[in-house]
């Protein structure tokens, strides 16, 4: 599902290498945790995989047939993200001026899913993440845990092959974090998608199928 080969990226300001000749692969349906010290380059790696950052060299093949996102122009990267990648962020990033249902529906619009399918898919996911009845609520009235559930629903609604999550439970209390993590893993597995989760949490990492540690020497 995801194959990274020979990836190198220098720190833009400090002019030192963040990582060199990095290689990793995530199989279809596999959930991989990426851990490492702060500032080691985990988020940069995630951004490179999402096509939001450009590596100095290497390739990142996504999907089947594989597409090297590094070789694509900005518009094609955006199209690939819209079709094939779902995102969950530490800071939730829910659009405050759209309702919960509209927030979840955004990836469907971007992926070009037929409008007739929007409402049923959105409603089904709202039910799945435990937010039935929240469709017309504004994000400002939701708690952190509820916001992250909205973000999970949004990441899954267009049925992407790959989920990229950056500290998905970092802003939540332990109890809510546990619930949100369980929900995320359950839904990803149910959809048969692959996931790469950047985390500092040992609990989150141990819940995944495999753990990769990013060190100055590379991935271990």
């Amino acid at each position, binding site marked *: 599902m995801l194959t990274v080969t020979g990836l190198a990226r220098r720190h833009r300001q400090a002019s030192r290498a963040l990582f060199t000749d990095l290689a990793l692969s995530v199989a279809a349906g596999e959930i991989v945790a990426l851990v490492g010290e702060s500032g080691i380059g985990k988020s940069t790696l995630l*951004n490179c995989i*999402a096509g*939001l*950052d450009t590596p100095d060299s290497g390739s990142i093949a996504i999907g089947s047939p594989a597409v090297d996102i590094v070789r694509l122009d*900005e*518009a094609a990267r*955006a*199209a*690939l*993200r*819209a*079709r094939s*990648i779902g*995102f969950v*962020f530490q*800071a*939730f*990033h829910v*659009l*405050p*001026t*759209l309702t919960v249902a*509209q927030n979840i529906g*955004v*990836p469907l*619009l*971007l*992926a070009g899913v037929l*409008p007739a399918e929007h409402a049923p898919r959105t409603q089904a996911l709202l039910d799945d993440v435990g937010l039935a009845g929240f469709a017309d609520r504004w994000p400002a009235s939701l708690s952190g845990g509820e916001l992250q559930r909205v973000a999970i629903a*949004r990441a899954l609604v267009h049925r992407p092959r790959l989920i990229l999550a950056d500290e998905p439970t970092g*802003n939540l209390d332990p109890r809510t974090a546990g619930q949100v993590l369980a929900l995320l893993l359950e839904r990803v597995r149910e959809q048969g998608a692959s996931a790469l989760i950047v985390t500092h949490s040992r609990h989150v990492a141990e819940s995944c199928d495999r753990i990769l540690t990013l060190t100055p020497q590379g991935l271990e």
Partner: protein
Amino acid sequence: MRILAAWLIRAQFRTRRAATLLSMLAIALGVALGYSIHLINEAALADFARAMKTVQGEPDAVIAARDSAGGVPLPLLDEISSDPAVLIAAPVIETRVRIGSQRTPLRLIGIDVFSAPALMPALLPRDAERAATGGILDGGLYASPALLGELGLQAGATLTLLRGDQRWVATIRGDLPAAGRDDLLLVADIAWVQEHFGPADAVSEIRIRLAADSDLAGWRERVAASLPPALLLRVAEDDGERASNLSRAYRVNLNVLALVALLTGAFLVFATQLTAVAQRSTQFALLGVLGLPPRMRLLQVLLEGLAIGLPGALFGLVLGYALAMAFTRLLGGDLGGGYFAGNVPVIVPRLLPAAGFLLLGCAASLAGAAYPAWLNLRQPLVAALNNGFTAHPQRARERGRQLLLPAALALLAGGLLQLPALSGVPLAAYIAIALVLFIGVAGAPLLTQEIFGRAAGLRLPAPQRIALQNVAQAPLMAQVAASGLIVSFALTASMVIMVSSFRVAVDQWLDHVLPAPLYLRGKASPLPQELLTALERPEAPFLRVERSAHGSLTLDPRRPPVALLVRELDRDDPAARLPFTGAVLVPPAEMPVVWISEAMHEIYGSRPGQTLRLPVLGREVEVFVGGIWRDYARQFGAIVISREDHQRLGGDFRPNDLALWPRPGQEGAAGDWLAAQVAAHGLEVASSGAIRRLSLSIFDKSFAVTYALEAAAMVIGVFGLAVTLTASVWLRARELATLAALGFDQRMLRHSLMLEGALIAGIGLLLGLACGIAIGAVLTHVVNPQAFHWRMPLDVPWLALLAGAAATLAAAILASRQAARQATRLPLAQVLASSQ
């Protein structure tokens, strides 16, 4: 994508209601003004054309004398009538007469009843009674219904018509049923008019209808070549162009005012959209991460601009129509400009111009949204997602580059100012004005950094220091907040400077052109000989009398005629009476000399020292141009010739204006003497003081509309600042919450934000003033000469400008209190807890 775009637009309108409505209103105002001016002018021109059609009919061509005092000789009428290409040749004598002691002369048109029906059906009379005698051929007079209504007369009434010393007592036999509802006309048989008012051996015009198979262009060329120089041949298109030329410059000036509003609107859209982009940069970044294509991030902001512009422009069209209706009722079709008769034209909106103005409003709004859209596209997704929009302070090494754009624009503007007007419209100068505004807005970040960057190092209390640093470190936001103010104050200051320069110049000019204490006017009619003779008697209470005769010359059939003024002045010292702009040349001894107005010099390119061939007194006469004088009264040019030269050329001096100097101590007697003459002959008398007051009051009235617009522009500019500052409070919620957490109390936060508002307003006003002076100079030295052919020295009314700036600064500080209040109402704990 369309659904997403609609969601985002709706969300934008919901969350930024005040800013959006304000931008919409500014666009609406610009469109409304432009559209109303267009509607009024179109209606006035149509009305003017209709009135011309009533009087002139629809001839293929007209032969007339170039000199208003001349005529078309009768032998030429015979010659034209016998031309095989001519179907009808209708002679007309048109003159102006007074009815009894009525002061305003009326048009009396003498027609040939046999040829007129086919060409001038609107002038056909209707007899009140079908009498066998007393009809038009027997000397019957026919009045338009409007005139009958105004005079309160009916058929059968007897009128005394006066022109100078000539008089005709005639009976009204009926009316002119096809005349327009506002036309004030009298019609009689040509022979009767000729018998009473002349000319004996000529007619005013020959109106011609060609045979169906004739070639108008070929015939025109042939006949024009054979005509004596004192006559001209004009065709229908010439009349249309002449009517349009009449009001073009005035129209252009009013359109500039509409552009003022439209430009202010465009800059408000710019401020609204840039703050909207800054406020939502995290959201746009998120959408980009989720897969929104880059071009959609650009298009979304443009679409939001259009969503402001389209309803704004639509509302502007409705408002424009309402304004046109109101203005024409209040001021007439020329908005008080005095170009067309004081009729109330009918406003008829048409689809194509309305669509044009709709597009203009949308284009202004899109232009305002273009830079924010580009910035939105340029925001790096990851940085914007994590940290929001950051207006990075410019580094020192970029200063040179920052200067490049304003410098390049200044060079371009300077180049444009060297270009001449395009078909009488100073288009290049207007583009240069827009560039000056861009330079002002583009220069805001640089000036902000230069001034406040240095001041930020000063040891100041915390709120002041924070305010200074905020402005210095975020020059882009300062630019956004100040842009509306820069534009509105620049345009307001420029109009104030232009109007002040013009007023001061007119005031000084009036000093020069009104040397006598009293003036007596016969309007278009010559003064009675009886009055002129009485003035020469020793018992007349006047020390000195200067007479002048006013006529006109048509030098180009497509342009309004040039005034020909025959004056009693010293050929060797014309500067005693005329305000010359340069050297006065001594003419060759035997050659007549004329002095031309600035407009004549600008329009026809005539220069001092040149020899002109003027079509006067029935022939072409060579005259020497002795100098150029300033004339703010006649926009289409004027030529002054001394009475001495005019008479030497064979001219018949029939004065219609007098300048009078009463004998010392006999001012009262002079007033009484004149009052008797005025009552007897229906003349006008006024003191130089009264003429000066009236002239300046007309001047002030005609510019009154500009003051209202300037005030509107300033209110919009101050509101724009308030809206942007309020938006910036939300944008910097985290920063403000951090300050509060660090110990800033509400009062300190409020002071800091109000000071920020004052500093930004100060920058806006400073740049606005600089741009305003530059634009004022362009309006005074380039636009006015190109559009109106009037030149004047620049006068900067510093006191008024500084008072305006101080008032605006106070308003801006008050407006920024709203932003400060918002800051103190922020849910600080929530903001700090949330990383959004």
